[in-house]
């Protein structure tokens, strides 16, 4: 059975149609990149998968159940947003919240949970700074800890919403590497929202491209073509392959760093 099953999903905000009749299934270990310009409902799709937003029509099932019932089995990595420098919290505390932060009471961890916590921290390579003040860590270190928070509950699905934003190239590779190795070893499917396909191009199985009012899905080679994207946008768009990178020229929001790669 597929882990995620999306059938006939349609999202409208008032008069505005974001997408219509979206269908896909996600199998164990599969990595789906959700691409597209701003305002096409990439984050909304994540919120629907988390059961925080109701679609206009259609159904979503995660391991056969509605998303609102499966939140504690879903790991979520939000956009990298720096923590307050003076926040009185250690990295360890942030990771632990993924384990029992939703439970009432003050509570202690069981021996098994403690092992799980230590193991996860080691697995993302955060052992060296996990007891330091969270707010004094770099953005990349904080993002490693967020990955650990998402993984610590041993989720059956991982949702990552622009997890690479404002990270440098080295850390982009580390973070994608962590997600990639986890989905291979644990078989957890990953939905990876990103405005730039290149950092994940070598590891994605399929791409869901959201354009204003329409969408396309398939392997990167199927979706990211001049013909495909031109049809999607209803305007001429060129997709170039340069030194193993995908460059998209001519989309309405071309002025963004976007598909043109990184402004390093």
């Amino acid at each position, binding site marked *: 059975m597929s882990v995620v099953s999306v059938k006939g999903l349609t999202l409208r905000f008032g008069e505005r149609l974001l997408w219509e009749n979206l269908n896909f299934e996600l199998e164990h270990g599969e990595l789906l990149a959700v691409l597209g310009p701003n305002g096409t409902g990439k984050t909304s799709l994540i919120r629907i998968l988390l059961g925080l937003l109701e679609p206009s029509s259609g159904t979503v099932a995660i391991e056969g159940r509605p998303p609102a019932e499966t939140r504690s089995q879903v790991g979520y990595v939000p956009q990298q947003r720096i923590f307050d420098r003076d926040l009185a919290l250690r990295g360890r505390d942030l990771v632990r919240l993924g384990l029992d932060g939703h439970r009432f*009471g003050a509570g202690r961890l069981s021996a098994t949970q403690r092992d799980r916590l230590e193991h996860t921290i080691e697995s993302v390579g955060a052992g060296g700074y996990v007891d330091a003040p969270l707010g004094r860590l770099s953005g990349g270190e904080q993002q490693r800890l967020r990955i650990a928070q998402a993984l610590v509950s041993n989720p059956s699905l991982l949702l990552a919403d622009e997890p690479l934003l404002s990270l440098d190239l080295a850390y982009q590779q580390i973070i994608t590497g962590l997600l990639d190795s986890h989905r291979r070893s644990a078989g957890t499917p990953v939905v990876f929202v990103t405005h730039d396909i290149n950092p994940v191009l070598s590891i994605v199985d399929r791409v869901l491209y959201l354009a204003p009012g329409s969408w396309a899905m398939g392997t990167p080679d199927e979706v990211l073509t001049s013909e495909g994207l031109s049809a999607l946008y209803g305007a001429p768009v060129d997709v170039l392959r340069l030194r193993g990178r995908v460059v998209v020229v001519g989309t309405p929001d071309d002025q963004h760093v976007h598909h043109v790669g990184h402004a390093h």
Partner: protein
Amino acid sequence: MFTNLLAQHFVHNALAAGAIVAVVSGAIGWFVVTRGASFAVHAISELGFTGAAGALVVGLDPIVGMIGGSLGVGLVLGVLSLRGRERDSAIGAVLAFGLGIGVLFLSLYQGYATEATNLLFGSIVGVSDRQVLELAVVTAIVLTGVVGLYRPLLFSSVDPEGAEARGVPVRMLSVAVFLLLALTTAEAIQVVGVLLVLTLVITPAAAAQRLTVHPTRALLLAVVIALVATEGGILLSLAHPWPTSFFISAISFGVYLVARIYDATGRDSS
């Protein structure tokens, strides 16, 4: 003279009330500082004053009016869950008008002006046995709330997005934390007065957060600092005829300064 005073019943009551209030203020302070809600505490406190003044006008117990006023504002702030600048200016606007109403109530009230002074600057020496009991009950309620909601409250305070994704009722917790805060504020007013509530609810927690990043330890440390400040302040005011509130705020601020210096020089210079 000092030892004579220490044997007095009213002094015992003052020390007991101070301790009860210190414990609850220190405990909730961690969440207030982490959520950046210091200004909200000030608003809740001043509107507590308005409630108390209103109660005086209509001949009710000012403490009832104060709790009503604090809870009302706490509820509104919690439900609105405003963030950033919007919250800042909205609180400022509401606070100013609320205080204006309080001034009107006071001018309508024909009783003793001391009542108003006590509300504004605190009066711990006149605490009755009954009041001590009431304070203890309210403290028990707030502490039960803090302990019972500890983990989701921590989660939603430091990482609201992550908490929401895990199904933590972030908005409901925001209302809960403001209601607990309103009850705490109404208690603290009775010891240090409306204008000095922050010295018990904010300063000890802010100092504790400079001394340790371990959240539970910081929370307990804030309780200890608040206890030292209130009990020390009460004892000093027995030995020297200056206002208790002054001594409490002075000790509290002194610890805060030391904590900041420690943080800037000692702890983890990475």
